[in-house]
């Protein structure tokens, strides 16, 4: 995944509800400063931020591999 908006779509799809997305997103903001519900356009493809968010998600058990599976299903 190469953009924050791609991560946002995939995570929302993987979690299945806006309420669950909000819980994980709040944890993400507190850990990384990145708000997936309000992505700054200039930061969307920032590779360092994308890596930071993916690392935080991985720590919470949402690995890039698992998210990719969800993304593939959505195609």
């Amino acid at each position, binding site marked *: 995944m190469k953009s924050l908006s791609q991560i946002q779509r995939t995570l929302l799809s993987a979690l299945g509800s806006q309420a669950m997305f909000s*819980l994980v997103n709040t*944890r993400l903001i507190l850990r990384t400063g990145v*708000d997936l519900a309000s992505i700054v356009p200039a930061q969307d493809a920032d590779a360092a931020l994308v890596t930071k968010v993916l690392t935080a998600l991985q720590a919470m058990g949402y690995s890039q591999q698992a998210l990719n599976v969800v993304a593939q299903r959505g195609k």
Partner: protein
Amino acid sequence: MMSTGLKSGYSAALDSAVAAAELGEQLAVVQPRAITFFCSHRHDGAVLSASLRQQFPEAEVIGCTTAGEFTESRNGVNGVSAMAFGPQVLKRCAGALVRAGEGAEAGVKRAAQSLTRVFGDLRALSPDRFVGVVLVEGLRMKEEEINEALGNLAPLISFVGGSAGDNLEFKRTCVFYNGEQTDDGAALLLIEPAVPFKVTKSCSFRPTGKSWKVTRADVATRTIYELDGRPIAEVYAEAVGGTAQTLDSSVFMANPLGLVIDHKPWIRSPQQLLADGGLRFYCQVLPGMEIHLMQSTDLVKETHQALAAATTELGGTLRGGLAFNCILRRLELDAKDLHGTFYQGFRGSQTAGFHTYGESWLGHINQTLTALLFG
């Protein structure tokens, strides 16, 4: 009196064994499955914890020291408040003590095994059916690590709570579980309520419209050095209309900084200006974060509105709950003589809480009333 399954208790006794006996008499009516207690640091919390467990062997008992204790009808700084959860409100529960001496993450993982034995895989639990309580030692600055570790194990489960206090002595705070204690860790309680529940966070601040990007910080010591590339003392003093020399705790308390998440403030309270020019906070702020200057609103009104809104969401009746109120808010209540009015928000419910050294919900926060409420 008909039991609602929740029962608050309070003892002003200074002797811990006497306080435990008084609380036992008050709480017995609900046949407790879980008890949370919040005690003055002058009490022997291990004695309280062990005695409550002895009186109610079926109950999981967690607790911590405080910067003041309260229920819906009583409050003080040298007593004990407590909440008992009976089978009417609680289907299942499990408690654990986190010992963080060898690392917060390892300690949380080890403690979580006790929760897993009762509930199975924590990641599989629905946030609509399960909720946790976390009481964190309040002086070692491990709240973020402990909350993150909980988030890694159970990202969808809310663990709500506060940091233990010692009534502003800043020497030692403790947490307790079934007679055990630690001054480096946390007490956990995971519950499956039998009634509707809700986490609510009230914060009497709103963004002023002034915001900056954190450009230099020392995360481990919760210190910010630069905002937008300029020294923080200069930027902050300019924003609040003073100079670096006039920055003191009263300025910090009235003008905290904060994140804005989902249009709501998540306060980061300044603690002290350091000799090296850094501004230390009561919780972490990371480089790259956008941080807003906040202005205070009406603490009591905001709290009552938040409790009323939560009551409506719970179906119109507030059975009661646990309330974690920041010490800085207590100091404001002290200064404005507003304690009586403040606690009226809990009138008619069974509520127990304490004044904290920080609140926990998905992370570590400051200057809120964060509550776990039951309908």
